[in-house]
C-alpha cells in the first residue's frame, strides 16, 4: 500500500483528505499542520506521496516543498491550493511540485492525481 503524508492547517481538510485516501487504498501515515512540521514528518516517515496545502502559518507549502525537494529530489509532492492562487501554483511547479489540485476538489481528482504522480 502506498503511504501518504497529509499537510494542511485546517483539521477539517486533513480529515477530509485522509478519509478520501483511505477509502481508496492509500495509507495515511502522518499529518502536519504547517510547513515546518511537514518537513520534520517527511524526514521521519518518508512517505510515497505528500499532499501539501499552500497557505499555512509558520511556513507556507511552497517553502516546505522547496525544503523537501532539496532533501529528497525524488519526493512526490502534490500541491493543494484554493481558487485564485494560480500564480502560486506556477511557482510551486517551478520549484518541483509534481502536480496540483484546486479546492474544492472531488475524491476522484485527488486519487487520480496521486496515481498519476506515482506512475512517473
Amino acid at each position, binding site marked *: 500500500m502506498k503511504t501518504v503524508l497529509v499537510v494542511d*492547517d*485546517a*483539521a*477539517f*481538510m486533513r*480529515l*477530509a483528505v485522509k*478519509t478520501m485516501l483511505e477509502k481508496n487504498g492509500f495509507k495515511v501515515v502522518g499529518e502536519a499542520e504547517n510547513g515546518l512540521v511537514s518537513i520534520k514528518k517527511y524526514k521521519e516517515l518518508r512517505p510515497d506521496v505528500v499532499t501539501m496545502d499552500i*497557505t499555512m*502559518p*509558520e*511556513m*507556507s507549502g*511552497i*517553502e516546505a516543498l522547496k525544503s523537501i525537494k532539496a532533501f529528497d529530489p525524488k519526493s512526490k509532492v502534490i500541491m493543494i491550493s*484554493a*481558487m*485564485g*492562487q*494560480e*500564480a*502560486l*501554483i*506556477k*511557482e510551486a*511547479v517551478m520549484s518541483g511540485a509534481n502536480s496540483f489540485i*484546486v*479546492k*474544492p*476538489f472531488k475524491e476522484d481528482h485527488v486519487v487520480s492525481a496521486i496515481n498519476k504522480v506515482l506512475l512517473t
Partner: protein
Amino acid sequence: MSNEYSNDPILDMFLFETTQLIEQFEQSILASEKTSCFTSEAINEIFRIMHTIKGSSAMMMFDGISAIAHSIEDIFYYLREENPNHIDCSALSDLVLEGADFIKDEVDKIKNGNNTDGNADELLNSIKGFLSDLKGGNPAGKSTKARKLNAFKAVIYFEEGCEMENIRAYSVIHKLKSMADDLSYIPENIIDDDSSVDVIRRDGFKLFFKTDCSREKTQELLMQTVFLKDLELEQLNDVDLKQFNGPQQVVEEETPQYVHNDNRSHDEKGSPHDSASAKQSIISVNVDKLDKLMDLVGEMVISEAMVVQNPDLKGLELDNFQRAARQLHKITSELQDIVMSIRMVPLSATFLKMHRIVRDMCKKLDKKVEFKIIGEETEVDKNVIEHISDPLMHLVRNALDHGIESNEERLSKGKPDTGNIIIEAKNAGSDVLIIVKDDGRGLNKEKILRKAKENGLLYKSEEEMSDNEIYNLIFMPGFSTKESVTEFSGRGVGMDVVIKNIETIGGAVSAASMPDMGSTITMKIPLTLAIIDGMNIKVGSSCFTIPTVNIRESFRPNENDIFTDTEGNEMIMVRGQCYPILRLYKLFNVNTHITNPSDGILIMTEQDDKTICIFVDEQLGQQQVVVKALPEYIRRFKKTKGLAGCTLLGDGSISLILDIAGLIGLRE
C-alpha cells in the same frame, strides 16, 4: 454545541472547526475595533480564518458560506497587501460581523439538519462594494472614469508539446486582467478541469474582452505569450461581445494580484502568535464517551465502597487489607477528580460571547457601557455550560435594555454617562455563582407589584413581602414590566426561560436591587450533578441520604421546644427561631418505632434561605455518593417530589437521596 450532529464525522469536524474559527474571528474583530485599528497579526489571522472557512465550506458544497468567506478574505487580502491608510474600522467591523452572523446561521441550520438556504446576495454586494470603495480611494486603484472601450475576440494556439496549456492560458488571463474589462473565455474551467487542456490544444484558447488599449497594443501584448504558436485577433462591436459574455464572468471576482503573496506569507513567522487564538494541544472527544467514562467512574466508586465496606469484613482485624484499601481509595479519588475535571470547561468562551452582544446593543440603543468580566477561568461541567449561555445572554440584554438608562438620564441623575455592566463567576462551596451586575436604574418595586397583581402572581399580601421577595417576583412566568416589547426583551418569556434553564441543572436565580443604584442578578449553579457528599440516615429499615451541602446542623431535640402552630404544623424553636419539622416516616409512609422526637434526630437542612428540620431515626455517617437518577419506570409511575435520585451504599443497599428544595416546597 448540541450533540445532535449527523453521524458523518467529516461533517462534525467541519461544524466543529468552523464554529471555533468563527468565534476566533469575532474576538479578533471586536478586539481590533476596540483599538480602532487592525494590526498585521490580526489581519493575517482574520485572512487565514476566512481562507480556511472558504476552502472547507466549498469542499462540503456549502456555497453560500464559501462565497461570504471568500469576499471577506478578499478584503483582508487587500488590507494585507496594500496597507491602505484610511480604513473605516467601525463600518468594516459591522460589515464583516454581519458576514460572521450569516455563516453562524447557516452552520446552525446544518447542525439542526436543515438546508442552508440563506440568501447572501445583498450582504455579498455590500462586502464587495466596501472593497471596491477601499480600492477606489487608494491612489494605486483603478480609476473609474469612463474610457473608450474596444471589444476583441482573441484565439490563442500554443505550441505542440508545451504541456500544461491550461496554466499558460491562465497566465494570459492574468496579464489581460489589468488592462481589460468584461473578460470571458472558453474553455471556462481551465484550472479545475484537466480536459480543458485538450480543448485548448484542439480549438485554441478563446478570449473575449474589452479594453481601452488600441488593437496594435493588444496584439503586441498577446504576442508576448510564451509558447505561442498562433494568434487570431479580431475586433468586435459591442453586440457581438455581449453574445459571448455568457460564460465565465468570474474572472473579475477572483482575487487579483496573488503574485505578491510570496514575500508576505512569511511575515507571521517572527511575530508570536499571542492573539486571541491561543492554540493549545487539544483533541476533541465525543461527549458521549466522556459521559460513559463518568458513569463508569461512578460505578467504580460504588464498587470500591462495596468491597471496602463489605459486611463480610465486619469486625475483622485486617491491617494489611485496610492499608491496601486506603491505597485503592486514594487512586479512585484521584481518578474521580481527573474525570470530573475533564468535563469541566471554563466559562470564558460563554462570557466572551457577551462582548459581541454588549457591543451590538450599545450601538443599537445608543448607550455607552463599560463591560467587565471577572473570574472567567472558573470552570463548570460541560453539561451545565450549555444551559448557562441563553440565560446569561438574556440577563445581559435586560441589564442593557431596562437597567442602564440613556446617557442623558444618567447625567441628569449625576451618574457618569457611561454605564457599567459586570459579569462575575466565582466558586462558592459546591456551587458556582454567576453574577450579572449593572449600575442602572434598579428594579422598580411598585411596578413589579403592580404587574404581579395584574397577572395574578401575588402569593402573599403586599405588606408582608420583603424587598427581596418583591424583586424575585420578576422570575415568575408571564411577568414583564416593560410597557413595550422591544427587539431584545419585554415579551415576558425571557425571565422564565432563564429560570427554567437554571432549574434544569439544579440551580437557582435571585435578584437584588437598589433604586437608581443598579441591580444584581445571581445564578447559583451546582458544580457537578453526579457525585455529592451526603449524610446517610435511617428511618425504619429504609436508608436516605441528605446532601451535606444542605445540612446546617443535627441534634436531638427537646420535647419542650416542639409545638404546633395555628395551622397545625409542627415547629421547633431553636435559639429563638422557629423552624418547621418534617417527619420523614410520615411523608414516605415508612414503618418505624421511633415516633417521639426526643428518641430520634432532627437534621436542620436549608435550601435557598428556607430551612426545614427533618426528623429521622438515626444518622449513619457521611459518605461520598454517586447520584443516580430514579429509574424511568418509577419516575413515570409515581411523581415523587422530594427525591433527587438514588444511590448504592457500600453494603449494596439502596438509599434515596432527598431533594431539600422539593421537601420544603411540599411543606408550603
